[in-house]
């Protein structure tokens, strides 16, 4: 039987560092994955042409995909670690809303996406919405 020892709650800076680690690794992973999927092409069309095996082969033979997945895996374990020390109501909305903003910035500069006023407005609305949803 494992007996859990009482662990002091992390301070605000430690909590911020945990959330920042999730946001940075998650953003890097998502941008790399999006770049990989853009280079692969429309998966629905590939599946219609070459079947499910062809679609899976197209994804797993893309080196960028592995770089993206590696960062997403680091983000996943950072999330698990944060869940173990902080409340879900803090970690989930904080990391989700901050990741939305950092992804919009990264998508504009690295993926050259057309992040117009409509998308910026949406990112900010969703960000504030997630904050209110957690309180």
């Amino acid at each position, binding site marked *: 039987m494992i007996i859990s020892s009482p662990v002091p709650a992390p301070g605000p800076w430690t909590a911020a560092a945990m959330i920042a680690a999730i946001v940075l690794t998650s953003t890097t992973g998502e941008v790399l994955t999006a770049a990989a999927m853009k280079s692969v092409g*429309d998966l629905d069309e590939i599946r219609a042409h070459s079947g499910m095996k062809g679609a899976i082969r197209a994804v797993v033979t893309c080196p960028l995909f592995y770089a993206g997945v590696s960062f997403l895996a680091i983000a996943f374990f950072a999330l698990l670690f944060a869940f173990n020390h902080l409340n879900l109501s803090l970690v989930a909305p904080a990391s*989700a809303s901050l990741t939305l903003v950092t992804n919009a910035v990264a998508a504009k500069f690295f*993926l050259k996406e057309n992040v117009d006023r409509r998308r910026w407005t949406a*990112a900010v609305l969703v960000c504030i*919405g997630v*904050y209110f*949803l957690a309180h």
Partner: protein
Amino acid sequence: MAHERLLPRQYMILGLVAVCAPLGDTCLSRGMTSLPAISLAHPGTLIAAVFTPWIAFGIALLIGFFASYLTALSWADLTYVLPATAFGNVIVALLARFWLHEAISWQRWFGVALITLGVGFVAQGPSSTERPACEEQPALGPEESAVQIEEEQVR
């Protein structure tokens, strides 16, 4: 190929993205909070946590999310797909209110309204960025590239 308007099948993929992510996160949270505190000095315990039932179920849901997410990213922009993931929070709030009969504060309803508004904003626009024709060509496989090089040499 860039689609201005999405097909019903593509909306279904975005729906899976929205539903699987928050449900998976909730399962992970439930699993991790039931475990004793994990220290960075023992990273192996994080790996062992993956095989507990709640976390394993959460991971299964997140695999479903990831497959849908990759498919969506292949025909839509990252900044179009991401609000769909946030819309999952709205689905969870609605399930909590009407299925579990939980009380939802006005702040949460306000949050739900803002996220819905934000997703509505993005959904009205194009799903992918228009690019010049030369950038839209899919990446060629090694055999196709070799054929293309030979054709250019013949010319």
